């Protein structure tokens, strides 16, 4: 079994799906793609009606259209089938679901506990729960990257966010940084998109 690297034609719109809304530089950075090539890819995708440029709350970025979402899912479906990875990714998703319940419970407990004072110190047991999730994420990602290299990096990003969280709680569920919640949610979206299933 050889891990398969995905082509830029798949990765560019897929980043837009994973990020939901992102500028050209962020799209290129997600998989270390060339910025100019990414820009061209986004313009091509725009011409096909797969992505659209929008401005929200002072930010300008790309998002997938409904047609783009369908196209992205067809690309991902073809990739899984071409590399005989569907059963393996589906089994990994099954193993991910109980972890996902644990993760969303942890994020929610943190938010509800910190509502009265957002600057309070992060309780040690909460960091411990996140550390356990990081530990369990590592082998799960390893099983994914044995099939498709594009699944790599989630554990590293989650662990980096966790390392920063002790000093700055924004790294737990914050929206402006690559927080534990954002990384986790991106992986969830990646699995859902790859398998073409509803949340």
């Amino acid at each position, binding site marked *: 079994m050889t891990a398969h690297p995905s082509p830029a034609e798949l990765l560019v719109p897929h980043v837009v*799906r*994973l*990020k*939901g*809304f992102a500028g050209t530089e962020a799209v290129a950075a997600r998989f270390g793609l060339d910025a100019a090539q990414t820009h061209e890819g986004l313009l091509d995708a725009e011409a096909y009606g797969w992505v*659209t440029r*929008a401005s*929200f*709350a002072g*930010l300008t*970025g790309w*998002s*997938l*259209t*409904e047609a783009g*979402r369908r196209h992205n899912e067809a690309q991902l479906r073809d990739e899984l089938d071409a590399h005989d990875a569907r059963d393996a990714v589906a089994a990994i998703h099954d193993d991910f679901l109980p972890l996902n*319940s644990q993760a*969303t*419970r942890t*994020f*929610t407990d943190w*938010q*509800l506990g910190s*509502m009265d004072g957002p600057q309070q110190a992060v309780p040690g047991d909460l960091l411990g729960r996140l550390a356990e999730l990081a530990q369990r994420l590592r082998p799960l990602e390893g099983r994914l990257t044995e099939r498709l290299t594009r699944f790599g990096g989630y554990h590293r990003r989650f662990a980096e966010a966790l390392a920063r969280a002790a000093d700055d709680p924004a790294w737990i*569920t*914050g*929206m402006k940084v690559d927080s534990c*919640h954002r990384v986790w*949610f*991106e992986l969830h*979206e990646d699995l859902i998109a790859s398998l073409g299933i509803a*949340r």
Partner: protein
Amino acid sequence: MTGAVTGVPANPGRALGTARLVRSVDDFGRLRPGDVLVCRTTDPAWTPLFHLAAAIVTETGGLLSHAAIVARECRIPAVVGAADAMTLLPDGAQVLVDGALGTVTGVAR
């Protein structure tokens, strides 16, 4: 509209605004700052809308859902798991969202 739509209270706070029914990404441009976002469910593509909306109402999900977690980060009232919200709330109606009670009620203009 008659009566109130109820769901899971997911983030406390009250907000008054125009109900905007958003069915897909292709409808995002319809949401105006201060509107109440009413939708089926949310995923990462919907996150920027939380910075514009005064409150969010979803038909699916619970306390642990993406919509609930992001609403808390953006500090906007949220009612989730409000089944039939998109059927019962007319687009353009003035509504009051109470994220502590989990209610959405119509308000006469």
